[in-house]
């Protein structure tokens, strides 16, 4: 069902219409096949890039579209309702552009941002390590200053688009302690950089997630983003925005599950009537719809705060927590609505339920979101 959106103007309405057209033709038609076969959608990100969907919230002077987060996130939600894996990768790409856009020098931005925002260079985000996930400050990957640049040594983990991306927002240690982490715009083709076999995931099968092994690879000095030691504050700043992206992905996924469940409940009959007319199922669907609406309202509220220049870190964590927990519940209930059929791979709701689970985990587990929120409360 088409979501009726309150958007700030005609340009935003046109953007959503364009997104729906592309999402219907390029995402919805290909998602089932690629998710089942675990194959990468070749050429799809080039299509999204030429349509202008890979640099929406960044300034027009660098090739972005200068869209507020309120609008950009609703684009992500529309993409996620057709194909969660692709929407997540778009959100991660947008996140990977953040350090350069926010902390890069004018020279660095001019050199790389236009290609990144046009989607000619696809980005990945590389903060986590096998032993440093939630506790990002424990990261160990080293960046040693040397003649002409930095030598990178160590292992990074859980990289969306790993091995496929053209660049990575890489966080590595230039010194000890939380202030010893630096951010780099690392090329995907650096010598001494190799990627592990794609993880065998529960869902999001079409986009690879890998480890990255840095074996003394040299990164040019002008690829340091921000100052040495500024890495963690850049990373957390990026994640506040990234969390909003994941909240939008989760909302889109939940909307898709709700739509499938409602359509099925209007068709399937038991005891002589449509199952949606049995109060037990009707109320379940009502709770699902209430959850989806609440998730959307929550992330849009956080986005509006960001767009207005207000603090939004706490609200971003609330949005991520609420939307992803909602997606888990709504997709699980969608399987329930389908009964035994929902447990089979013939129906999309089975896939949606698997896809929802990761959203409670990545870009800050929901336990970390609660930590962020409770620390705000304790201030």
């Amino acid at each position, binding site marked *: 069902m088409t979501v009726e959106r309150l958007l700030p103007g005609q*340009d935003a309405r*046109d*953007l959503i219409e*364009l997104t729906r*057209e*592309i999402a219907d033709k390029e995402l919805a038609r290909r998602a089932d096949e690629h998710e089942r076969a675990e194959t990468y959608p070749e050429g799809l990100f080039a*299509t999204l890039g*030429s*349509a*202008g*969907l890979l640099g*929406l919230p960044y300034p027009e002077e660098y090739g972005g*579209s200068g869209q507020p987060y309120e609008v950009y996130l609703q684009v992500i939600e529309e993409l996620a309702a057709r194909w969660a894996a692709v929407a997540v990768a778009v959100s991660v790409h947008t996140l990977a552009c953040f350090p350069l856009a926010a902390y890069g020098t004018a020279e660095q931005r001019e050199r790389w941002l236009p290609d990144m925002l046009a989607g000619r260079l696809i980005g990945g985000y590389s903060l986590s390590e096998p032993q440093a996930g939630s506790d990002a400050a424990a990261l160990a990957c080293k960046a040693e200053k040397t003649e002409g640049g930095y030598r990178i040594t160590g292992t990074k983990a859980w990289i969306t688009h790993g091995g496929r991306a053209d660049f990575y927002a890489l966080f590595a240690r230039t010194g000890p302690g939380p202030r010893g982490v630096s951010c780099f715009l690392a090329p995907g083709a650096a010598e001494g950089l190799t990627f592990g076999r794609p993880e065998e995931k529960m869902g999001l099968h079409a986009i690879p997630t890998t480890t990255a092994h840095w074996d003394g690879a040299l990164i040019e000095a002008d690829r340091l983003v921000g100052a040495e030691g500024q890495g963690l504050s850049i990373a957390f700043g990026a994640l506040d925005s990234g969390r909003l992206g994941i909240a939008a992905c989760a909302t889109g996924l939940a909307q898709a599950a709700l739509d499938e469940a409602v359509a099925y409940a209007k068709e399937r009959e038991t005891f002589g009537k449509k199952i949606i007319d049995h109060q037990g199922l009707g109320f379940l669907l009502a709770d699902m719809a209430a959850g989806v609406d609440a998730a959307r309202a929550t992330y849009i509220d956080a986005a509006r705060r960001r767009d207005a220049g207000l603090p939004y870190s706490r609200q971003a964590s609330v949005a991520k927590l609420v939307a992803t927990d909602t997606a888990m519940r709504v997709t699980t209930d969608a399987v329930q609505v389908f009964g035994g059929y929902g447990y089979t791979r013939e129906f999309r709701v089975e896939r949606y339920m698997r896809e929802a689970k990761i959203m409670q985990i990545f870009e800050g587990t929901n336990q970390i979101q609660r930590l962020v929120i409770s620390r705000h409360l304790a201030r």
Partner: protein
Amino acid sequence: MNIVVCVKQVPDTATERKLRSEDKTLDRDAADGVVNELDEYAVEEALRLKEAHGGEVTVLSMGPAKATETIRKALAMGADKAVHLHDDALHGSDALGTSYAVSQALKKIGFDLVILGSESTDARTGMLAAMLAERLGAPQLTLASKVEIEGTAIRVERITDYGYDKVEASLPAVVSVVEKINEPRYPSFKGIMAAKKKPVETLGIADADIAADQVGLANSWSEVVDFAAAPPRAAGTVIKDEGDGGARAAEFLASKKFI
């Protein structure tokens, strides 16, 4: 090179289409208007030719006020400017009347090359390209699956039942395209924003030197005498396999002369 692409707004084939009982013409308000699909291929080809050879792409559309949506879409894909041929006197024109009106507008705009889809999904006469070429005294290269231009020479591959013919002519010329020719691009968000600022000139029949007694429903050479809704589809035949399913399916196909 001055390329004019003719685009038509047609009712979305995915929705139910209706004729109006009062004058037996298509009810264009009853369904969402979309760009005739083959015309998107024509726009794409025009843009590719412009990218290769330089020049300008003008969109020409004849239709009611809401055809501006279709014009904006073609502009968002990258066309430079547009002409909207719009006059109540044109309502109900048949293929002959339409080809006359469009050819008059084309004379007014001027062109080296006219490109259009080989047929529309509503009227489906498939005759407009040939009629335009005749009225303009230009060579017609229809059903093109490939177009090449070198100087003033234009070569196309024209699809046929047995493969394709290679056809050559000199510009100015009229080309109609089939869906094999390319893969139309999506408009970009920036293209959509830019399209809002591109010039769209509206021409009435007087502006394009179109004689009122040659166009419109009353002056059409063809007439819709009557129409009826398509009968609802009859229930299909279900063959339950009881060991002889294959043979019975074959019998069914043979009875319908499929095999």
